[in-house]
């Protein structure tokens, strides 16, 4: 806060214009003690989440001697890649204050179509991969249109879309998905170049692009504006309807892409491929500091949230305790991370410091 008790009292002259000019001179000459926040809150959250992840990696050496090194980092990155892609989409939707419950179903649909249309031969990849992305995007657009035009709450609309898509996938495959992964997908997920796995290079590229899109483009900034205050965004002339629909299209296409990756990883598709990615994507976004109400969050901290949760899962699975206790420990650690990264602590660190 500004230091209101100035060392020099304003003069209280009883004259007219002369005293006004004196006051102005006083104000112009008084020291400028205004400040802004020293560190942006988003930076603090990101540093906090990544810091916790690194701490966890160090601590995991106590759980098993094989952990705690670069090998573990490698494993975490490879295991986390699906969640990173999915969390990007979920993060965009949460940024505008919505929620996408259709992600597991879209992952499954994309995986099933990839395995059966493209299959092991890879024939027609050049037009089939984009076609599948368009189908997923189209489903996302349907969700978005329902939310914008028909005013259906995002929770219900995406839940309904998810149920319908999952049911269609079940009907399409008759219960048994056929096919496998094409050489391109296998190469992406299992191949490496000069010793570095392709997937790690790809994920690094994806993270950079994702951060740029969410934080540096007009698209991302407008989404954040819509999330903070829809009415203000409308008044500012932003075509909010189009942006909201695009957010859901983005989320659906991220889920579709994750489906491709999973087919490559497991060399096939199953009808349960998307299981687990709903709650974990929401958890990754929220643990990473984004507000579920929208308007705040950065992909950098979401990536941190993803890595933290994946590392946590890896360390916990190496503990030699019964499953029930593993689950309890997992929940407690998440709670601990949330408590460390909470609002008032972050405000404490980012509060403006007065300049001397």
């Amino acid at each position, binding site marked *: 806060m500004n230091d209101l008790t100035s060392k020099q009292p304003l003069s209280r002259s009883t004259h007219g214009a002369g005293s006004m000019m004196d006051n102005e001179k006083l104000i112009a000459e008084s020291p400028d003690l205004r400040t802004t926040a020293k560190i942006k809150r988003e930076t603090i959250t990101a540093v906090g989440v990544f810091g916790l992840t690194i701490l966890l990696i160090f601590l995991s050496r106590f759980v098993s001697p094989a952990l705690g090194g670069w090998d573990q980092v490698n494993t975490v990155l490879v295991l986390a890649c699906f969640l990173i892609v999915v969390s990007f989409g979920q993060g965009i939707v949460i940024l505008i204050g919505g929620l996408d419950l259709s992600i597991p179903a879209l992952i499954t649909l994309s995986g099933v179509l990839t395995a059966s249309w493209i299959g092991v031969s890879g024939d027609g990849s050049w037009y089939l991969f984009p076609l599948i992305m368009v189908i997923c995007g189209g489903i996302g657009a349907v969700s978005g249109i329902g939310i914008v035009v028909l005013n259906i709450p995002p929770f*219900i609309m995406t839940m309904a*879309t998810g149920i319908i898509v999952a049911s269609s996938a079940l009907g399409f495959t008759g219960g048994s998905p056929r096919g496998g992964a094409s050489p391109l997908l296998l190469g992406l997920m299992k191949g490496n170049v000069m010793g570095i796995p392709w997937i790690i290079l790809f994920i690094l590229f994806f993270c950079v692009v994702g951060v740029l899109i969410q934080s540096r483009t007009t698209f991302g900034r407008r989404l954040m504006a819509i999330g903070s205050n829809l009415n203000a965004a409308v008044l500012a002339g932003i075509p909010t309807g189009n942006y909201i629909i695009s957010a859901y299209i983005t989320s659906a296409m991220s889920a579709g892409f994750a489906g491709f990756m999973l087919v490559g990883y497991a060399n096939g598709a199953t009808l349960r491929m998307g299981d687990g990615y709903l709650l974990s994507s929401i958890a990754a976004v*929220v643990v990473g500091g984004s507000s579920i109400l929208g308007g705040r969050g950065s992909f950098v901290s979401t990536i941190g949230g993803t890595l933290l949760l994946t590392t946590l899962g890896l360390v916990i699975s190496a503990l030699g305790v019964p499953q029930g206790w593993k689950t*309890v420990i997992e*929940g407690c650690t998440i709670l601990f991370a949330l408590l460390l990264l909470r609002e008032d602590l972050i405000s404490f660190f980012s509060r403006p410091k007065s300049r001397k």
Partner: protein
Amino acid sequence: MAQAPASAEPSAPENGLLRRLFSSGTGVIALIYVVLYVLFALWDHSALTSGTVVNLANNAAPLAIAAAGETMVVLARGFDLSVAGVISLTNVIMAAYPMEGPDGAAISLLICLAVGGMVGLVNGYLVSVLKLQSIAATLATMIICQGLALVILDAPGGTVSDFVADQLTDVVIGVVPVAGLIILVIVAVWLVFQRTAMGIALYTVGSDEVSAQLSGISVSSTRFIGFVSAGMLYGLAGFMLSAQTATGNPNGGASFLMLTFAAVALGGTSLSGGRGSVVGSILGAGTLMLLQKVLFAGGVSSFYTGIFQGTVLVIAVVFGGLITRLSERRGAR
């Protein structure tokens, strides 16, 4: 200063009641339920027998009570994911430590309410005092509760006391299901609560937290009460689930997560707070369970039930939104 124009004379008294019902969404879901039941009766001749009604009440009771609890949190603008964890936990406690007879049943009930209430206390503390986001905090407590359930019972088993399993799924006075009576009690308590200061505070905090704070309402106490009462209702839901399945299942609560929110939203409660009612959520739960039966009776092929469920969900919400908006516009004149 200009005088505010005198408002138009309200027409017949029942107009106001109808309008209130429909603008809160409760009337809409009640209408949808009736329509579905009519379809059910058309396709299945046993639909109107007391046996079917009792079965429906027993099946819907756990979800209905869980949805009622969730409404307490959603009204004040929050998400409570711990419903799945509390139900699993109370279910396994009932099955691992059965207590015989009516006294035993009363003690078991108190234990369930206490467990749920404690989880609600923790949630309330995390959200109101420590200012964590409700979806994140309750996600963590849900995971912890599910882990504890697995620690207590690592595979389905145990036995629930015969008194609980038999009496709570039975009927009194020949045709009235006990489960139905319990739901009616909850509805009655809600209708009273809705008019108390705390009930109104719940709605106010949900619509506009800042003005609620400025009008002197303690936002954190209101949320606290919301979470604790929600937790206790989840405990009751777990109790009723144990009565229906008569055994413990550490994963028993998992399917309740999505279904509870669907029931709440279907019942006309807005997921961003400030509008809705427990009665609507209970009817929403009943509709979801009835839908399964209607689709079965209609002979819908098993692969495509999902498509029907999703479509009905969307139609119901659109329909409901339409009617709510129309009735609000009408009421504003």
